[in-house]
């Protein structure tokens, strides 16, 4: 293993150097742990520097600030595993595939100057990313990357198509945000290369139910008339029924020349007494190729492997296929198990995503380089190969008979802000299970029940005033199944992310604190950390009741007029600097204008905490002046200057009205305010 190319999968989410700001991300998975995704993958993508356990509120603050700048972040997960408490700033979308499961593991990460495509065998869970034996392909589309535009287009188109399987309403905001990220990716399509490199070919291959294009069919198209005389298959799962397995195997054999060699690599149980290896595979893996004159070989893939000077169990979860011919070497990696649903040979398939690498043999070092990405097995002589029934495909259903897939009648659950209050909207289909009940996690009181729904006349949509109570990220749905009570989780999306309440620590910032944060020139999280550290230190000193004897230390010079003015001036400049940066979305601009350290928060703090009416008027005038001096840096794909100035203008107008209404100001100050307002640029005010 020493020569193998390996990577900690979490590092796939680390931004490349000089990629600019994060724009948005999409991901798909079969099994899923929301907590892992949020705290590991998303945090890596956003370059979070705090830890949820160690840093508490600072983690929330940093997360809010970083996520406020995104166009969208979303994960689409098979409906059986679509659950988990999460931040409402990213979407969790259930996906339902009637003929199989939603099984692709694709991630699309978009930064200003890079679009990254990750296709792998790993689910977005801790085991998938940290423990299992998996394989991953990462393509960074950056200027001059040389990667083919066709690969970019195919992947993005497939991600868009996956929305067909989303169990959310047609008009759901989650769909719009998913498409918005795709649109951002497409804006960067020019990073890819339009010319074709005949020696080196990379193509994402997707399997969708019922489209008649099995994985083998697509592979055949990419291989053209190249002959293949050897195939290696790594798969932890196989078809359980022999005749179905035969169809899948024949699909592979059609790609190869008669008499070729097929090598199966999978885990097996060692029967030490007999010296045999018992593979959880159909016997067809041996009989079908042999009957057609093919050579067959088996390799045992050990799961107890050395890591960190220790032997650890790493379940095999990688899926890969190597096709070798005299002229080409091809390697396919991704989510497809070697089953009829994984490969789509019968039409009743899963949704799958794979990545093909095809190299012409004369490309120097290609074969050796590709070998470094292949998991080696231990050859087992045919006389020592035995079989046992294959495991059910990628399926832990037997462990989770009570937590079911959300029935399709539960169409959409979303929260929206309306006149300062939150409303929960449930969209329900006509076909619903018996005795259903929707409730909050850990709260016995139901939100809605079948009984009330019937009484309401079976509405397709029901609105609930939510008030100011905690906003749920998922609901619990229960109903009576055939034999027992069943339950499922129903993820909730948020229509207006910009209206989400800020963390409590950010809601009560007074003027001094805002000034300190805005004038610090560092990130919000760091500025707050410093502030609270100082507050704690001060509290400790006060608690110790040590009288200050040095007269110089007994004066808080921060409040001296000159010092205070300087600090406020720096704060205004900090605020202006935040507004001048390109904003990708309305939400991002909202955060800067109306967020917890935005313009309106500062204006409100001035109104509430200024030391006098005169100071209040003066500071508001200065704030207006600063806003009129904003020189927005328009960038490609971001909000345009007119839109930004328009929004700033709205704020300026409201501040101006407030300033005009202040009575009893000294004549000089009133004159100064008028002079300031007269300077307000036309375009802004």
């Amino acid at each position, binding site marked *: 293993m020493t020569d193998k190319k390996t990577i900690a*999968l979490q590092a796939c989410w680390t931004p490349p150097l000089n990629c600019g700001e994060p724009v948005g991300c999409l991901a798909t998975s079969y099994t899923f742990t929301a907590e892992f995704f949020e705290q590991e993958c998303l945090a890596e993508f956003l*370059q979070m520097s705090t830890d949820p356990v*160690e*840093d508490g509120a600072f983690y929330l603050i940093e997360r809010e600030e970083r996520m406020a700048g995104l166009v969208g972040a979303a994960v689409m997960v098979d409906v059986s595993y679509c659950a988990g408490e999460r931040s409402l700033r990213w979407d969790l979308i259930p996906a339902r595939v009637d003929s199989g499961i939603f099984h692709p593991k694709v991630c699309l990460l978009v930064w200003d100057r890079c679009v990254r495509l990750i296709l792998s065998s790993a689910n977005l869970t801790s085991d998938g990313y940290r423990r299992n034996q998996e394989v*991953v392909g990462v393509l960074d589309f950056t200027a001059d990357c040389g990667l083919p535009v066709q690969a970019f287009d195919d992947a993005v188109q497939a991600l868009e198509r996956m929305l067909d399987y989303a169990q959310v309403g047609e008009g759901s905001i989650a769909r719009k945000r998913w498409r918005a990220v795709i649109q951002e990716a497409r804006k960067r399509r020019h990073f890819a290369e339009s010319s074709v490199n005949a020696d080196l070919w990379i193509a994402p291959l997707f399997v969708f139910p019922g489209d008649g294009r099995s994985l083998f069919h697509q592979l055949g198209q990419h291989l053209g008339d190249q002959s293949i005389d050897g195939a290696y298959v790594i798969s932890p799962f196989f078809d359980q029924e022999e005749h179905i397995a035969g169809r899948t195997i024949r699909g592979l054999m059609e790609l190869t020349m008669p008499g070729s060699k097929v090598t199966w690599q999978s885990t097996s149980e060692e029967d030490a007494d007999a010296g045999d290896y018992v593979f959880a595979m159909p016997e067809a893996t041996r009989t079908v190729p042999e009957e057609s004159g093919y050579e067959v070989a088996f390799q045992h893939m050990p799961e107890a492997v050395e890591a*960190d000077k220790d032997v650890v169990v790493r379940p095999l979860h990688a899926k890969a296929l190597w096709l070798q011919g005299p002229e080409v070497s091809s390697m396919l990696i991704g989510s497809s198990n070697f089953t009829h649903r994984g490969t789509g040979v019968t039409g009743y398939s899963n949704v799958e995503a794979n990545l093909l690498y095809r190299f012409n043999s004369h490309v120097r070092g290609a074969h050796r*380089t590709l070998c470094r990405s292949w998991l080696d097995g231990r050859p087992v002589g045919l006389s020592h190969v035995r079989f046992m029934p294959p495991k059910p495909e990628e399926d832990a259903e037997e462990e989770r008979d009570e937590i079911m897939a959300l029935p399709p009648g539960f169409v959409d659950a979303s929260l929206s802000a309306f006149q300062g209050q939150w409303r929960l909207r449930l969209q329900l289909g006509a076909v619903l299970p018996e005795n259903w009940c929707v409730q909050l996690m850990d709260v016995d009181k139901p939100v809605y029940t079948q009984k009330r729904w019937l009484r309401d006349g079976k509405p397709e949509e029901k609105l609930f005033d939510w008030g100011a109570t905690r906003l749920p990220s998922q609901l619990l749905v*229960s109903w009576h199944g055939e034999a027992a009570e069943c*339950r499922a989780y129903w993820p909730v999306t948020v229509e207006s992310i910009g209206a989400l309440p800020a963390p409590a620590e950010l809601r009560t910032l007074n003027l001094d604190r805002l000034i300190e944060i805005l004038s610090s020139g560092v990130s919000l999280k760091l500025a707050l950390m410093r502030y609270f550290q100082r507050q704690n230190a001060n509290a400790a000193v006060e608690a110790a009741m040590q009288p200050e004897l040095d007269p110089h230390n007994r004066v808080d010079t921060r409040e001296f007029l000159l010092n205070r003015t300087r600090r406020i001036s720096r704060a205004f400049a900090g605020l202006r600097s935040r507004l001048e940066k390109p904003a990708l979305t309305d939400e991002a601009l909202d955060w800067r204008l109306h967020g917890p350290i935005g313009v309106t928060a500062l204006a409100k703090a001035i109104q509430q905490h200024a030391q006098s009416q005169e100071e209040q008027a003066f500071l508001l005038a200065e704030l207006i002046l600063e806003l009129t001096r904003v020189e927005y840096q328009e960038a490609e794909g971001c909000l345009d200057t007119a839109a930004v100035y328009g929004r700033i203008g709205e704020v300026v107008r409201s501040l101006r009205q407030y300033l005009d209404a202040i009575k009893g100001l000294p004549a000089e100050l009133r004159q100064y305010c008028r002079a300031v307002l007269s300077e307000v640029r036309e375009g802004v005010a």
Partner: protein
Amino acid sequence: MSLSRNLKQITPALSQYDPGTSAEGALDPLGLYPLADALATELCPGVRERQSRPGFLVPMVAGAYALRDIDLERVAPDGTSNALQVFEWVVVLSLIEAFERDQPENLDRLPGRYKVSEAIRAGTPLSHQNYLKTPSVFGFFGVYRLLARTLFLLDEEGRRPGENVLRMLKAWEADYPEIAGFSSEGGNDFSRALVQRVERGLTEGRVRPGWEYGSRAARVFNPSSLGPHTKRCVWELLTGTGDSLRGEYARLVVDYAESHAETDEVERLCHEALFNSGSEPLREHLTAIKRYERVCRLLTDAFDEIRFDARADRNIKASDLARGPCVAKAQKELPTLAAGLQDALSAVSQAHRAEKVFELMEPAADAGEWAAKLVQHHRDNQHRKPPNGKLPWIDRFDNGRLVTRPGYACDESVKAGRDYVHSYRFHPLKSFAMDLGRLS
């Protein structure tokens, strides 16, 4: 760039085994950890379970001293990394460049080792982007800062030199004549080169591999090869600073470890042995730990038994759990232990942290009722966890059924045990003693 030139980068990769790092107490389904941690902290201030190599104190002290005139409020273009963070990159990069190939044993337990190795292999500079995700917690400054503060090697904030800094630097210089003058007012060539490299890194927001002083930095900051003077100095600080129990406890733990083999129950057995030799305050503290751990063991065994019994293929209600021996034992014994625990925790001023635990020690009508209370306690505890609350490990259905969620079920039936649930710094102290030459 052509694809052919880019071949090595674009080909697939196999996943690494990556157990990851998690903050202490990140699990803890019953919320028992905070009190255990408070008891351990009182017993051995400054030492945390994740610490194992006291040698990291050397670069921390040297860095804080060399950079004493640099504004630590100034941050790199990434908006987060200050001079001490950049200094940490410099040290880790130097260590890995020097030892990765031929002496990897010197890199044992080096925070960030794999990420930095990856960056070196990829030929990219080290920066906030490719270093540890939360360096303030998981980098060596993050892991050992509390210890450095407690030993007065760093100041209260863990950023500037503390009152013992020169004592440590003198010892270090005595071990490495090549760095003589480091602690002098003007420093020496090495300290000045360090400052320059940090200044540059701070400006650029990254540190590039390859530095003329890199091999010297690796040699003198190597946590695996502390010199005799440094070893003595650290041990003396560890066992002599302040009036805490740490010194006595550390010496007794080392004596015990010298003559006893490591077992699963080593911490409990060690504490039992220490009852015969420890001072009165130490015995008082160990009594609190012993009683608390007895309660934790009963609660944990009962909870694990519930997780096992409530596997998805079972049809279990809380009332059925009464049949479990661990549940029955906990329900019966806990009320009898309450008064003793209250006394012992009060003696060390920690009783206020055990309110929720005492609720579980109140008499219940029967074991079924108590099991339901334990499950509810777990659910409440999960609900309180940051940042969004966590899902409970056990789902409870309206008809009273309990089902352990996949991934949280115990694979084997639980046997009531006696060993501690939590750790009380035995292993870090033993590891310190080995690195400092106090234990073979």
